[in-house]
């Protein structure tokens, strides 16, 4: 009886702890990560720099879509890592979100531009269609399909754990 009591005092918390361990070490234990596939919504937005119209069909291959704005502090934090990705020839499309055009251009002039192209989504309409809740958020797009979505700042850890496995597994050669 006493032995049973002693063991159960240890076993019950042990079960609870192992369960939380399993839950935390689950693959997609990043609360901001989402792997739902959906096709890139069709859009026609202005290029931030020259007001030329860009539609979804113009963007081909595999690339990241990064939602950012000059008013967003976390984007500022994330910016250094995006520049690193750009240095490693990762293609990034910038989606400037609910931002003043001049502010955005000045911001990129000050901190550097890692983007292949920057779309100006002043009303946030494309962002809305893609399910964006705020900035920064990052999508991985392959052949007009969104295959991964991360809400929040991406950094080396998020990149390696959320995006890289997918890129390797699917063999998105042109992403890297």
């Amino acid at each position, binding site marked *: 009886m006493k032995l049973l009591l002693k063991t159960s005092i240890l076993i019950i918390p042990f079960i609870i*702890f192992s369960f939380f361990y399993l839950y935390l070490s689950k693959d997609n234990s990043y609360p901001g990560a989402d792997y739902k596939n959906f096709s890139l919504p069709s859009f026609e937005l202005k290029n931030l720099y020259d007001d030329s119209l860009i539609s979804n069909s113009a963007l081909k291959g595999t690339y990241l879509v990064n939602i950012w704005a000059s008013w967003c502090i976390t984007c500022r934090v994330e910016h250094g890592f995006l520049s690193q990705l750009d240095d490693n020839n990762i293609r990034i499309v910038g989606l400037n979100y609910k931002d003043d055009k001049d502010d955005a251009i000045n911001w990129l002039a000050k901190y550097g531009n890692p983007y292949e192209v920057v779309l100006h989504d002043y009303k946030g309409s494309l962002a809305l269609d893609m399910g964006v809740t705020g900035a920064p958020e990052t999508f991985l797009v392959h052949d007009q399909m969104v295959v991964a979505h991360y809400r929040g700042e991406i950094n080396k850890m998020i990149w390696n754990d959320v995006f890289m496995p997918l890129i390797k597994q699917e063999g998105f050669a042109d992403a890297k």
Partner: protein
Amino acid sequence: MIADISHYLSILSTAIFMLTFSLVLVLDRSASHATLLIKRSYSHAFILFLISFLLYVYLALTDNFSVSYIAQHSNSLLPNFYKVTSIWSAHEGSMFLWIVFLSLWGFAFNLHNDSNLNVKNLSIGIISIIIVGFQLFLLVTSNPFEIVLPFAPENGADINPVLQDPALAIHPPTLYLGYVGFVIPFAYSLAFLINGNKSLDWEKKVKSWSVMAWVFLTIGISLGSWWAYYELGWGGYWFWDPVENVALMPWLAATAFIHSLSVASKSNVLRIWNLLLSIIVFSLSLFGAFIVRSGIIDSIHSFANDPQRGMYLLAFIAIILFVSLGLFISRFSMFDSSKNIKSLSKESFISLNNIFFGVLIFSTMMGITYPLIYELLYNQKISVGAPFYNAIYAPITILATIMLVASIDSKWGRPIDVKRGFSMLYISLAISLIGLITIGYFVGNMPFIIMLSIFMGLVIIFRYLMLIISNIVHKKYTNTPSALAHAGLGLLILSISVNSILSSEKVFNMKPNEIREFQNITIQFSELELLNKSNHDSIRATFSLSTEGKQFYLSPEKRKYFARGQITSETAIKIMPLKDIYLTIGEQLDNGQWVINVQLNYFIRFIWLSAAMMALSGLIIIKNIIRRRV
């Protein structure tokens, strides 16, 4: 520069807490010179950590946006008051405050002299190593001192608008003070186990500390409930949100603990149980920190997180828990007491209620973890909500109240004398029955379980009233805090039951100048204004309401904050003696109508009043203990 000093002081403090722990390990703990050294070492570590925190407050006040955390959660336009509170509006800063409080409790304990030097020093050592664990967690995984390089932003991102509220200034700090306060009974009971002298009355020593922590926890939880009601526009007092539940579990365990402490002091039983409870209470407090900070659960309270933090916390809590449980089990034989609890004695009723509290805690734990287990197994999200908790809490609470009422007539150490008259109990039952019938007359049909709860709530209140009156008449001593806290419990059960059957809500779509009727209330949409404030735009709707011959205005608002673009809803509440009329304004529809939500919340003020009564009774207990010592 100041940020670096603050950062450096925190690191130094961690090192000195580690030194304190090492001193406790290597020195002769019963020697008075070692005691002095340990005491000073702890105090220095604490003071350095406190200075580090105060410097951080200064950084926030002076808008030092080179500190990344301050840049992300404060703004130069904020009033000074919110610049300070913004420190605990997110994970890193609130963890910082949490640890400051943890070490503050230890500091207060450290100042106080204990006749048993060995146990005192061991407790300080245990507290120090726990602090070190959390300080490392702060510095390694959630560093609030991180600097934005190379350029500091010109302005900060602002505090979340729902947190721009006086209640935020006190709700989290009070709650944290409650959670971490249980480190004292935890450390002391472990020190008692290591020391191994069973004649030491550790239960008596930790009582005032435990009651104090319990008071903070009680106030913290009720402030959160009140804040959710009027600021977040949730329109109720309790939502069985997972994070509310992780605060409720240590509260329940702590309530059981402070009752059982008295039992142990009075009749030398439940000693093993108390040791286990002190471990459970503190572990549940830490579990709360884990749930909120690991990002496991989506909730208004959870912080955006990475799993690394969760893993660290999980591992550290596991070490604390398994070391203490291991120690507990190894000393099990120390208390091979053959002393049994007599049935129908006061101890027996308190013990039964301990079991009921245990069931409530276990069920709540199941309610929190079941959706996670389900998600792990089936990859689907489900939620466990109010129906589950109501189904468990209502009947068990009623059983517990029966034990409570029975315990009033019982004595320590011997069974109730059944031949004795129970006139006061019968009178209270009779008055409560009349009360129930009166309430039933106004309310109409109600479910049996609600009838039973109302009845039991009334019985508790009247039974304690009778007790006080009879004690005054017979010039006998009244245990005022006990009567006050339990009458508060009676009021709580009564208010929750009445609230659950009478409260109602309705959603209207209205245009300005339209009139609607709801439960004898005439609501006229009289005006809609646009306001431009310094940090937000606002739409304010004014309604003219008339009920029971009285007329008044209510003006709910909808605000849009500039810095984050967040939209918040400001409720308008008319407080009447028995009910609140609660108005919120929602979206505007395409046809120009506005969505208006009207709620009638009965007895809701009494719920918070009852919590205040419980907290007050705790304060009286502490006052009495201190007065007896002086």
